[in-house]
């Protein structure tokens, strides 16, 4: 009995390694070669894009980055797309987060694109940095931004930055976009959109995207970038609307091609696995 179990475990391990190698090999192949495949932009990404285009320039957009390196593959291109859009459209924004890493990574992205596009810290954008997620803090933020945040990520008083002049409360925010792998967007919907009507956009990982559709239907969200696909759609919209060359540390369209083949592989494996299972099942029934 023990030998049968050992043989089965060894066989499973062999199968797994073949599948891993197949997946990695196919994805590497599709990453190496750039393919122009048809791609259609969805209404959710378009909604967020059009909202950003129409933002007033005397208010501040808030880019909330609640992600960590674990979800780099999805949240990084989303953040990069949004920051490039804010810069190209000339909309002032602040970077904030209730995760320790997100604002740091967002600031690095903003610095890189600011250098290329001639934007200035404190004038075109500001990084508030990280604060612990506490509901009383959120209420304070809604009511009194300078009193709650007070300083930027380097400890400098917010009052010295031209971008923060006239920004007192949530009423002075033009848009909140939450880039996150968790459901933190509900906080901004409850305490900002629900209380003072601030528009809220959402850029979740693809896992969280299905749960956001109720908020899209009730218009509590103005738009959504669903995972890497949302980032690719946003990139396509930026390409369409702006002549400036966009740069990407991790190009979302190239990623979509590799993900395509991975999805085809998964579908094929599900079909193959079920075919083998039902064939074996029928053979056993015929024998018994």
């Amino acid at each position: 009995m023990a030998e049968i179990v050992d043989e089965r475990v060894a066989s499973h391990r062999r199968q797994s390694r073949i599948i891993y190698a197949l997946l990695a090999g196919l994805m590497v192949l599709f990453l190496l070669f750039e393919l122009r495949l048809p791609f259609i932009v969805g209404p959710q990404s378009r909604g967020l894009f059009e909202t950003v285009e129409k933002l007033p320039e005397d208010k501040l957009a808030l880019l909330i980055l609640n992600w960590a390196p674990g979800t780099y593959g999805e949240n990084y291109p989303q953040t990069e797309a949004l920051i490039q859009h804010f810069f190209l459209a000339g909309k002032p924004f602040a970077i904030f987060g209730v995760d320790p890493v997100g604002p740091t990574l967002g600031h690095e992205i903003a610095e890189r694109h600011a250098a290329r596009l001639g934007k200035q810290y404190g004038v075109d954008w500001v990084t508030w940095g990280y604060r612990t997620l506490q509901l009383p803090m959120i209420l304070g933020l809604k009511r009194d931004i300078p009193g709650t945040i007070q300083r930027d990520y380097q400890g400098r008083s917010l009052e010295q930055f031209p971008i923060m002049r006239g920004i007192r409360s949530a009423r002075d925010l033009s848009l909140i976009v939450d880039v996150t792998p968790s459901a933190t967007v509900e906080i901004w919907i409850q305490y900002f959109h629900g209380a003072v009507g601030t528009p809220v956009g959402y850029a979740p990982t693809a896992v969280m995207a299905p749960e956001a559709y109720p908020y899209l239907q009730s218009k509590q969200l103005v738009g959504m970038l669903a995972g890497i696909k949302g980032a690719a759609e946003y990139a396509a919209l930026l390409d369409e609307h702006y002549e400036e060359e966009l740069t990407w540390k991790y190009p979302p369209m190239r990623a979509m091609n590799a993900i395509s083949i991975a999805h085809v592989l998964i579908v094929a494996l599900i079909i193959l696995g079920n075919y083998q299972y039902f064939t074996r099942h029928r053979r056993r029934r015929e024998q018994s």
Partner: protein
Amino acid sequence: MSLEGVITLLACISTLAIFTILYKENPIYRLFEHIFIGLATGYGISILWNQVLKPNWWLPMTAEGKWPWIFVLVVGLMFYTVYIPRYAWMSRLLMVTLMGMAAGVAFQGFARLYIPQLTASFLPLLKPEPPYILFNNVVIVVTIITVMTYFFFSFEHRSRAVKGTASLGRWLLMVAFGAIFGSTVMARMALLTYRLWYLLTAWRS
């Protein structure tokens, strides 16, 4: 070797070290896993001090003369009484106070999150809308009612009407689960794609 070169080399080594788990459990994976936890903890501490405690507590207390902020430290230390059995009740005192505050905040959150959801669920079913919108509205309302019936555990589903409704709700819920599964696959693949892209392109920059 330049700093950038060292960073790139380390990044590639770390990625491959984690990927060794795909072959089998091994000491290299364990070592890098522990290094990751250590770095994450250390990063959390440094960011917490630089961006939360120092600007919001230390500087107001020491540089701006607001010495009553020291009482916040005393309150914060109550968390640590959980390790001293005699005083452990103090940590509970602090926790329940914070929970009470969160509960109070949650009431307004509930009103602002769910009431718009409720009003958005009351859709026209008979008005002269285009046929496809009427169809969609009917599907939405039927789905919400049947799925909510499925989750009603306060009474037993005895009658055929309730059983049938709950059963339909379960079927419709499967569609949502399928959508979640499909999205989850894309999410995982996106994370892998990024790491493979990095391994392929890191040396170019």
